[in-house]
């Protein structure tokens, strides 16, 4: 019903556009006599039709659940005062499920059945009334605008204003959502810290989040020292950066200065394809190909390598972030004016001296920015480490052992059946908050660095 009203509203909007444009064109001899371009009068009329109608739709969608619930409960004849809130909400849930047909076997409660019928009826009537209001408001808006159309009406300014408001609303929404996420993380984290002290979480060295179901089982308390997880994340990120930084930076230099145009045309897109490989593909490559090879090589030279190791995950993660490092460094290098390069070459410096002593120092902030963004990518990466790094929360700096990371722990803590208010589940939110905070810091630093970089050449 409401979808039907919406589509009618859109149709009416289209029609208003045509009508408004045509009417204003009929008022003048030449279109240039209009204050704005003819299309703006179309938009003006169309927006006056669309916006009021759409506001009604939004209002209905926002208020309908409450209105319907209240009306249904009132009509159902249940004594609201004698029932608890939970009972009422359970009752309403059943009513809604019945109404949408998602309970296959009907319960035998006549009050429930009656309420469901009532609910369906009210819902239909409400939608019809709402649709009527949509039509009324859209028509009123349209006729207001249509009658105001004059050749000297500043339609352009009004349309621009509506556009600006729309854009503003969209960006506000994005910001609000971000804050919403942070606050929900914060709220859950606070709950977690009610059970486990932040000191233990941040500085404890033993991580074993399994809490037993019954108090008399072993390890009933769980232990939430997250240091092994942080060090595991750092270890893998460090390995990844060790792979990605030299390869990415050197390939950016090669592409920027030495590669012929033909090589660059082929190699650059190929390198960027690496960024498009789904991380789960990297993950099974790391787990099934690289891990075993490392283990075999290790045992051949007398090292014991776990089949799931930080090294395997770090290497592949490094490969994954090479394109980040190389394409961002490439941008930074390309942003150094050609005049710098010519100035240095003109003094008799060789190409490599020029790169080392002039181009790289000038591009350094941009390159550092590339490293920071790549690092925050690596810290947040999940799939590869889930598949290749293991789950054991070892506190170790040995890359040949299995380690676990923040992201892996979040995945294992939250997948499967969970009680939602156990310390185990809540600890995932605390880990998420830490992750969020660290990547946020890296990104902010990168932003500051880039800002300084921009000033350099402007």
């Amino acid at each position, binding site marked *: 019903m409401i979808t039907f009203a919406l589509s009618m509203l859109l149709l009416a909007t289209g029609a208003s556009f045509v009508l408004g444009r045509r009417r204003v064109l009929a008022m003048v001899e030449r279109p240039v006599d209009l204050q704005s371009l003819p299309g703006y009068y179309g938009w003006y009329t169309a927006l006056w039709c669309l916006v009021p109608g759409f506001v009604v739709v939004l209002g209905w969608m926002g208020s309908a659940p409450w209105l319907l619930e209240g009306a249904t409960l009132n009509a159902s004849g249940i004594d609201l005062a004698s029932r608890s809130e939970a009972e009422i909400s359970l009752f309403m849930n059943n009513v809604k499920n019945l109404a949408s047909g998602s309970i296959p076997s009907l319960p035998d409660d006549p009050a429930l059945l009656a309420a469901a019928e009532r609910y369906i009826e009210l819902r239909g009537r409400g939608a019809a009334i709402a649709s009527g209001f949509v039509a009324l408001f859209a028509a009123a808006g349209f006729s207001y605008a249509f009658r105001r159309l004059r050749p000297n009406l500043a339609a352009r300014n009004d349309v621009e204003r509506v556009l600006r408001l729309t854009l503003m609303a969209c960006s506000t929404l994005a910001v609000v959502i971000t804050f919403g996420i942070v606050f929900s993380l914060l709220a859950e984290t606070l709950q977690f810290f009610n059970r486990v002290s932040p000191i233990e979480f941040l500085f404890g060295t033993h991580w074993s989040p399994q809490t037993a179901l019954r108090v008399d089982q072993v390890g009933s308390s769980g232990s939430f020292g997250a240091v092994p997880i942080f060090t595991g994340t750092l270890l893998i990120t460090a390995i990844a950066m060790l792979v990605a930084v030299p390869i990415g930076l050197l390939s950016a230099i090669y592409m920027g200065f030495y590669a012929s145009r033909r090589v660059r045309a082929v190699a650059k897109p190929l390198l960027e394809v690496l960024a498009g490989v789904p991380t789960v593909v990297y993950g099974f490559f790391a787990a099934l190909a690289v891990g075993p090879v490392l283990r075999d090589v290790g045992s051949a030279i007398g090292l014991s390598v776990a089949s799931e190791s930080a090294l395997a995950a770090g290497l592949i993660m490094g490969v994954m972030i090479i394109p980040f490092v190389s394409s961002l460094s490439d941008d930074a290098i390309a942003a150094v004016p050609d005049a*710098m390069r*010519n*100035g240095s070459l003109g003094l*008799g410096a060789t190409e490599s001296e020029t790169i080392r*002593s002039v181009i790289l120092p000038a591009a350094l902030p941009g390159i550092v920015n590339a490293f920071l963004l790549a690092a925050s990518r690596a810290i947040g990466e999940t799939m590869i480490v889930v598949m290749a790094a293991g789950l054991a929360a070892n506190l170790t700096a040995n890359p040949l052992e299995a380690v676990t990371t923040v992201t892996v722990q979040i995945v294992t803590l939250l997948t499967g059946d969970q009680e939602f208010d156990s310390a185990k589940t809540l600890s995932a939110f605390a880990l998420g908050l830490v992750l969020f905070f660290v990547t946020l810091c890296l990104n902010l630093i990168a932003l500051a660095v880039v800002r300084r970089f921009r000033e350099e050449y402007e």
Partner: protein
Amino acid sequence: MLLAPSDSEAEVIVPEPSTEEFRPKMNATAVDVYYGDTHAVKKVDLPILEGDVTALIGPSGCGKSTLLRCFNRMNDAIAACRVEGEITLEGRSIFDAEIDVVELRARVGMVFQKPNPFPKSVYDNVAYGPRIHGIARKGPEMDAIVASSLERAGLWQEVKDRLQESGTALSGGQQQRLCIARAIAVDPEVILMDEPCSALDPIATAKIEELICELRGRFAIAIVTHNMQQAARVSQRTAFFHLGELVEYGRTEDIFTNPVQERTRDYITGRYG
């Protein structure tokens, strides 16, 4: 049609060979430059004389910069660019396999149209060349080179207290003089300047012109300029180019007061350009 053939060049170029010695520091003979299919410089012969300032003038796009870049092989860095013909430095071909382009550029320095100091300190800008050529590394020896180069570029008084500030923080005119100091620091024999004043205000321009006059004699200088008065003020020789051809070359006073070619006269009197 352009220039008399080279055997009679001495007559055309230097009317009184007995009083004025003809000393080409560099000499271009029959130089052609192509950018892909564009023929940018056509069969040009041009000497750059020891101790003199040679001005290259002509309308935009006539190949002045392109030719200038040939003298220290800066065109090598442009992939599409192809240079034919012969250019010598002290009688030896600069395309000679034995002459390394690094060494060539140390002997033939270049100053660009837009001041392009490195984003380093004033000191390091000047020290850059001597360092890469191993003339000096640091310490008092390098200090002396930096000081004397800045002195010769007429910048020492203005920057002696701010040697550690970034070169990019100087004013446009100071930056250009810093670039000249940077070129002088490796003690070149020839300095090429491509419209060194076109990005500067009149006062800064006057300072650079003054500087060019002072540097004359110690270096062979070739300068591209759009400004007729500038060419007349600073140069002893002038070459007029049009559509990639060298139309006329001679003593500056002759070119400006009594040009042989119609096209030169038209350009100098502002008929086109």
